[in-house]
């Protein structure tokens, strides 16, 4: 019983002691070369076959030709942020600054303002995320008490010609929606925006 | 044998003349001959307990008055009878107000108080009028006022009508209310006997307690004490209500068997009904099952049985009564009457009401009975005044003694909403 309950502690393995022939390196180098050469020759063979139109279907490499083809993203993958809306269209965010506080990259900047509705009280006057600084840790999503900030847009290829262009403001963040809810038309629009 | 209720059946007993024909105002004359301390000693010997519910010996309370305090002393009669199931003070004030006044006079003489307030429940309009008329009569007869029975002992009795708050039956909130403040209980110590009305020494006694004082004087302390059981002197008015053939107020010696009260004095249950539960001492006392009712009705025996005598308002529940619904009614009452001052009572009573209302309306959840009991236990002992306990004890009693009643509701609720329960359990 006692042995079953013992916790296995992984002990750091010592540096492997090399035999003489291994210490000579030469044979180990040849062994390594054998492996790479094996791959080289085999792949070259298939490449040549393909070049001449034979055996086109053989999967030569696991390479995905991005951006023409994309890997399907996991649903919980952290992608570009968005701000969710309430049922009536107003932002869910109440500018509690949790995300700004927890953000390890200091990429979120929120300015709060009051709203007349006593049930909401507070809203973000501005909400900027500097994607250029973001480390995509997802802490902001974890910290959000209102489920307002989400990282489910499925957008990963974010680029801009200026630093300022990497700063997403509240309108842009609110204009995005979840990858799972997106219609084909919206996908097209998104594509256009990304290519701008 | 009848003491306080002796004149209840006499027509026009509330009138001074009728009262005096039946022995009224004889004891005060005797008392005025005695030294105040002797009276207090007699009352202590009589084992006269506070009959408002707490059961604190009245004589000892009186002896707590500080001797060297130069401030005036006050006697306050607690006529704010709000405990559900209790209606004894009403009978005294309706049928024998002069007995109460006589008791006030003796007590005032004993504790050297020159002002007495009768804080009467706001709903007792008729009784307030009777009392005021009685006071006027007594005054006119020279029994009250500047000279009490010719002695140089001025005594004013003031009837103060409450605004209908149950909490004002608690002595310190009664005093607050009397002072014109919010009826919030005060922190103790200081006790009213030291700092009460307007920070002066004040004795607060129940109508019934004060009404027994003349009888203590008439019978003598020891004889009075021998009427009841050990350490529970004298007799008591039992208000019997609920599912009995003859509900009403019965004056019986302290220590009368509860079973006898229900089945002999109150006429027993209706035909074909089965006894389900008995609440022995007003709604705030823990409930008794039919197996437990064979016990003497006095303060100590009921405390030993895990309940309390309280105001001796016996509520009899038979098998036609749904106990969960009954408990919900009680919870609603206490939540409504909680003053809101201290946290456990304010939030706890409201929470219990919410749970019970929901159980009754849409069935319960499996966590509800345990949660109710937990909330109630967290209130007990932690609130400023006993209202928290009053609200919690019935819940604990019902939940512990009648789990099957709750199980029915829980089963109903769980089948209706399985998914939300699962969520609730996760939360």
């Amino acid at each position, binding site marked *: 019983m006692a042995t079953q309950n013992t916790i296995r502690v992984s002990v750091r393995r010592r540096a492997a002691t090399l035999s003489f022939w291994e210490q000579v390196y030469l044979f180990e*180098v040849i062994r390594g070369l054998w492996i*790479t050469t094996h*791959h*080289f020759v085999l*792949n*070259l063979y298939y490449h040549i076959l393909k070049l001449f139109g034979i055996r086109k279907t053989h999967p030569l*490499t*696991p390479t995905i030709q991005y951006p023409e083809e994309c890997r399907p993203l996991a649903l919980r993958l952290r992608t570009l942020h968005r701000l969710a809306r309430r049922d009536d269209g107003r932002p869910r965010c109440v500018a509690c600054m949790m995300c700004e506080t927890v953000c390890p990259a200091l990429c979120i900047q929120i300015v709060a303002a009051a709203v007349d509705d006593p049930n909401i009280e507070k809203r973000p006057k501005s909400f900027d995320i500097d994607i250029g600084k973001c480390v995509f840790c997802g802490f902001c999503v974890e910290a959000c008490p209102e489920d307002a900030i989400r990282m489910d847009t499925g957008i990963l290829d974010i680029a801009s010609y200026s630093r300022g262009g990497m700063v997403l403001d509240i309108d842009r963040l609110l204009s995005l929606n979840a990858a799972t809810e997106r219609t084909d038309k919206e996908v097209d629009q998104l594509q256009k925006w990304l290519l701008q | 044998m009848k003491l306080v209720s002796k004149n209840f059946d006499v027509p026009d007993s509330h009138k001074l003349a009728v009262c005096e024909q039946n022995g009224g105002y004889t004891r005060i004359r005797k008392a005025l001959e005695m030294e105040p301390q002797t009276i207090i000693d007699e009352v202590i010997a009589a084992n006269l307990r506070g009959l408002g519910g707490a059961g604190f010996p009245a004589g000892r309370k009186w002896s707590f008055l500080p001797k060297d305090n130069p401030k005036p002393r006050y006697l306050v009669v607690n006529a704010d009878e709000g405990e559900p199931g209790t209606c004894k003070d009403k009978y005294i004030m309706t049928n024998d107000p002069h007995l109460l006044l006589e008791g006030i006079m003796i007590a005032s003489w004993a504790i050297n108080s020159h002002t007495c307030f009768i804080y009467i429940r706001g709903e007792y309009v008729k009784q307030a009028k009777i009392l005021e008329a009685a006071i006027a009569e007594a005054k006119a007869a020279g029994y009250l006022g500047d000279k009490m029975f010719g002695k140089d002992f001025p005594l004013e009795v003031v009837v103060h009508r409450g605004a209908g708050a149950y909490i004002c039956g608690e002595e310190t909130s009664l005093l607050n209310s009397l002072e014109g403040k919010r009826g919030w209980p005060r922190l103790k110590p200081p006790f009213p006997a030291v700092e009460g009305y307007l920070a002066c020494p004040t004795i607060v006694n129940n109508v019934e307690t004060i009404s027994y004082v003349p009888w203590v004087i008439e019978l003598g302390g020891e004889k009075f004490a021998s009427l009841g059981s050990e350490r529970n002197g004298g007799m008591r008015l039992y208000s019997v209500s609920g599912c009995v053939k003859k509900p009403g107020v019965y004056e019986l010696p302290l220590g009368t068997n509860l079973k006898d009260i229900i089945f002999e004095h109150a006429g027993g249950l209706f035909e074909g009904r089965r006894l389900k539960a008995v609440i022995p001492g007003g709604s705030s006392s823990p409930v008794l099952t039919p197996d437990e009712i064979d016990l003497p009705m006095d303060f100590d025996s009921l405390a030993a049985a895990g309940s309390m005598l309280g105001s001796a308002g016996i509520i009899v529940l038979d098998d036609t009564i749904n106990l969960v619904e009954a408990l919900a009614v009680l919870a609603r009452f206490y939540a409504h009457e909680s003053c809101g001052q201290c946290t456990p009572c304010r939030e706890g009573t409201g929470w219990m009401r919410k749970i019970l209302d929901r159980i009754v309306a849409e069935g319960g959840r499996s966590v509800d009975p345990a949660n109710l009991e937990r909330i109630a236990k967290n209130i007990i002992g932690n609130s400023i005044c006993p209202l928290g306990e009053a609200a919690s004890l019935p819940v604990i009693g019902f939940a512990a003694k009648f789990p099957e009643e709750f199980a029915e509701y829980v089963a109903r609720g769980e089948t209706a909403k399985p998914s939300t329960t699962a969520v609730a359990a996760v939360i």
Partner: protein
Amino acid sequence: MSPVMYWTTTVAKSVYILVFPLTLAFVLAWAERKQSAVMQDRIGANRASVFGRPWLGFVHMVCDAMKMFTKEDFVPETEHRFLHHIAPGIAMFFALLAFAVIPFGNQLTIAGETIGLQVADLNVGILFVFALTSLGVYGLVLGGWSSNNNYALLGAIRASAQMISYEICIGITVIGAIIAFGTLSLQEIVLAQGTHLLAGWLPRWGILLQPLGFLLFFVAGIAETKRVPFDMPEGESEIIGFNLEYSSMKFGLFLFTDFVETVLIAAVTVTFFFGGWQVPWLYETGFAFPWGSTWAIHPNIAALLQMGAFVGKVVFFCWLMMAIRWTLPRFRYDQVMDLGWKWLLPLSLANVVVTALITLW
């Protein structure tokens, strides 16, 4: 030889020492990407395209060159701008010049004139090669020093330390070969490898005479090219090398020098240990196989065959070095020096001694 012929051949040979290594280096730059991709189950450069096709990734090389030429040529604030400018040129110059003494064939006979397939048949060819590769270090040192940057200077010192360490080993190893062949002329060394051993079955190549010498030479040669696993001097982005302050085509020249040196080391290795342009059993007049049969060939055809053999051998060694580069991880610097001084140097000395003893015997 007629003057026309003389000048024509001279110009042709000069063009050769420019075109052959540079072309091969260009191909190597391509192979660097493609070969590694194929080895690693990838596809490699395939995005840049002309007429809708990537042309096996060659378009990338062109684009790279265009990029190199059009990038901003950043020159640091240094008092040695001149040296800074010419440093990559020095490195490249000496690397290319060494090809002058490497024979790429025996001789061609055109219009009755015999043309030696070697730019300059120096009788001290081997020393010439060493002199030039040693001088190539100046390119790096000057580049690092004139950059006016501590990191570049450190990188340059690191590079020179490494290269000097391994040059010693190369030099001593080659002494073994010189003892074995008894000549300093590279053409003569190649010619000496034209005979056969074991009743004509086995070509008498340097590797058979100097197996240990070959290993030592090849290892030290890779170190000389500053490529993985000995790429400490450049250490591209990780440890910062002498070329830190270089950009655009000057940086490109340094990069290219590596490839040219790769070709050079391959060529020298082939010359010393794999019979240079020799093809087994191929003589001036044709093949003469050990089992007795012969196949007569026109001498010029034979010479061309031999030139092809040389190129083929060089390409093979380039491929081998590339394969090593994509197989092995980088040494730590202390390991580099350790290997150079504690292992290669004693071994090469032992090799000389043993070779000398055997030769005496």
